[in-house]
């Protein structure tokens, strides 16, 4: 009886041995198929990041630091500050990803990041950014930014001048209309050269 049992047990490994089994041992030659939800190395969309540093604040390990990076959008991210992640400390919890208000930080399927030194695995936006602007696009955007800023400034100036003039008008109720109009014109011409300077 005992012998039969023992024999039966030996049949088990044999059965297993004939099966084709895949586990991670194939690793260096063949990567495992990773699911879409995989929480691997972060991917930053530098074109939309607004530099709000929400991600840096929520990180439990304090591994995100905001650094300067050239190839983002100067329109959305005025100070051009983008996250840099210290993967020596990151535990891939994904809280930063959940916290990002514009969903520009994602976690991808890339998981290899070995380095010789500790500082090798501190990855800046240069490494993280999967989407970025080219240098030309950045200069264009900067120009665009300046133009918008100038337009805004001009609009503000004009509005201020108008307000001031109206206030004056209101105070000098009895004064002649022509006088007031001339003053308004003068204010407008004064503002113009300054606009040009800003642009």
């Amino acid at each position, binding site marked *: 009886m005992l012998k039969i049992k023992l024999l039966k047990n030996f049949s088990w490994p044999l059965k297993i041995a004939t099966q084709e089994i895949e586990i991670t041992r194939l690793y260096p030659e063949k990567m495992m198929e990773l*699911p879409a939800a995989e929480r691997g190395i972060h991917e930053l969309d530098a074109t939309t990041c607004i530099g709000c540093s929400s991600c840096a604040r*929520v990180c439990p390990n304090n591994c995100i630091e905001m650094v300067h990076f050239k190839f983002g959008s100067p329109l959305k991210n005025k100070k051009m500050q983008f996250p840099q992640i210290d993967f020596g400390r990151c535990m891939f919890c994904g809280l930063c990803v959940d916290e990002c208000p514009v969903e520009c930080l994602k976690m991808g399927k890339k998981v290899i990041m070995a380095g010789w030194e500790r500082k090798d695995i501190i990855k800046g936006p240069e490494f993280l950014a999967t989407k970025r602007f080219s240098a030309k696009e950045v200069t264009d955007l900067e120009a665009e930014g300046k133009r918008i800023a100038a337009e805004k400034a001009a609009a503000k100036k004009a509005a201020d001048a108008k307000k001031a003039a109206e206030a004056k008008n209101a105070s000098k109720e009895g004064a002649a209309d022509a006088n007031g109009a001339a003053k308004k014109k003068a204010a407008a011409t004064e503002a113009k050269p300054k606009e040009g300077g800003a642009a």
Partner: protein
Amino acid sequence: MTIASEVLSSIQSAFPGAVLDSRVESDRRLWATIDSNKILDVCKHLSSKHNFDHYSGSAGVDWIARKEMEVVEIMASHGAHQVVAMLKIKTPRENPSVKSLTGLYWNANWYEREIWEMFGINFEGHPELYPLLLSDELMGAWPWRKDYKGYPDLTTGERAVEITTPDGYTQYRIPPTPAEVEAGTVVLERPKYPSFREREELEIKSDSEMIMHLGPQHAMVPGPFLLDILVEGERVKKAFLDVGYIHKGIEKIMENRTWLQGITYTDRMCYVASLSNNECYCGAVEKILGLEVPQRAQYIRVILEELSRIQSHLIGTGEFLTLVAGVGYAPWQYMIMDREKIISLIESVTGARLTHTFVRFGGVRNDLPEGFAEQCKKVLPYMKSRTEEFIELFAQDPIYSLRMENIGSIPAETAKRMGCAGRVLRAAGVAYDMRKEDPILVYPELDFKVVTGTRGDSADRIDVTLREILESIHIIEQCLDRIPSGPIKTEAKIPKKVPAGEAYYRVEDPRGEMGMYVISDGGDKPYRVKVRGPFYATFQTLTPLLEGVYIADAVAIAGSMDGCPSEADR
């Protein structure tokens, strides 16, 4: 069935004036502040009249603003009713001292030692008040008090004394202040933790005896802990257990992190059971916030927690069998292969293989991916047939049964008295499962059995574990059939600051009853998080169990508890 309000009125009528303050949160939770002089009588009354035979742990809380400390005794019953009584005892902060419950409950020992070393609350009548988790030199620093400044005392540098050891290492010691000595919170003549040599001199009585180390680094142990066994020939005469090698101070860290960040730390208590730990913490916070979890999220949580239970049982059993069988890595290999399938399933949802950080306040992080149900329906029947095969295999193996049967048996009464948890308790025949006792999420709607054993020995523990896998598979199958569509997160906005309040939430961890006691003072960080871990409870029973067994069985007993020292030490 007894409910919380009945228990409260019974205490009030038996001991007029003993209840200083009380709150009946629900039928299953009672909060009461008890006069510290009457606590022993109240506990005696509860255990004799209301079947409160389960001392589930205690927590210390430092209320620095109110200048008092609190010890919260968590009392429950092994299945007679579902009430959990949280009995608070107050003591002034200047001279904190309360009565010890070790006379009534054997397992109060470790919980009280921990509170003593962390908060400096003295326990009158405790037999062996010496450090459990902390190293000797941290004694007297009382690290979990709210005014602890770091070690060595970084702000003033006054209290830490630098000592150079003969080997040239620098040690710091924090001597007690005269006030503390006077107050008696510091036991000056406490039994010093003996070195190996000292222990040898102390314990070895004859030439036939010797002390053997199992650990802190040993193939048997799943994490570092030291088991010294005093042996005479092949028999273990006495066992000494030292824990704290992997103490991370997670409870203290969580006090210094925001509510959301705390989730990531619960993962790290026990990496194979991280989903249950997430659930326990989030559940407690949800209770304080009064959040309702959407149905779909509840189902997702149940599915994942059961998957996580399966993989935890597989890794635990495989690891243990490798140790006892001495046949190389065969059982480990088979079980880890199967576990890989489960892990892949979990990974496809959470995005991580371990440490999932998946459960969120009022929901979950991700929805189930496309085709998850189909994938499950492929893997689960396979798992089922494999598990049945394992059960059959172990049942018929003569070597296995010689090695495991009637080894380390615990009778049901003893298991209850010692406060064992999880498989150790259930193998002894006590059907105590949080999923039935303190049902959360959608568990009440699901059909499953609580698996129990009869003999309470190592073989039974493994058998219970494997049959629990079958139950888990059954639960997941039901969930997949019933899961509704809908949102996975609550609509309600989760505030950065949690309103003041407290909650005690229990889940069934793969290793047994896990509870978290969370207090909020209305800030953006928890005021206190107390983790009542299942293995901590079971671990305590190891030393008495090992007395009188063969050396080879020590491994079979310690291993069959499916230990995780990381969770015990926190």
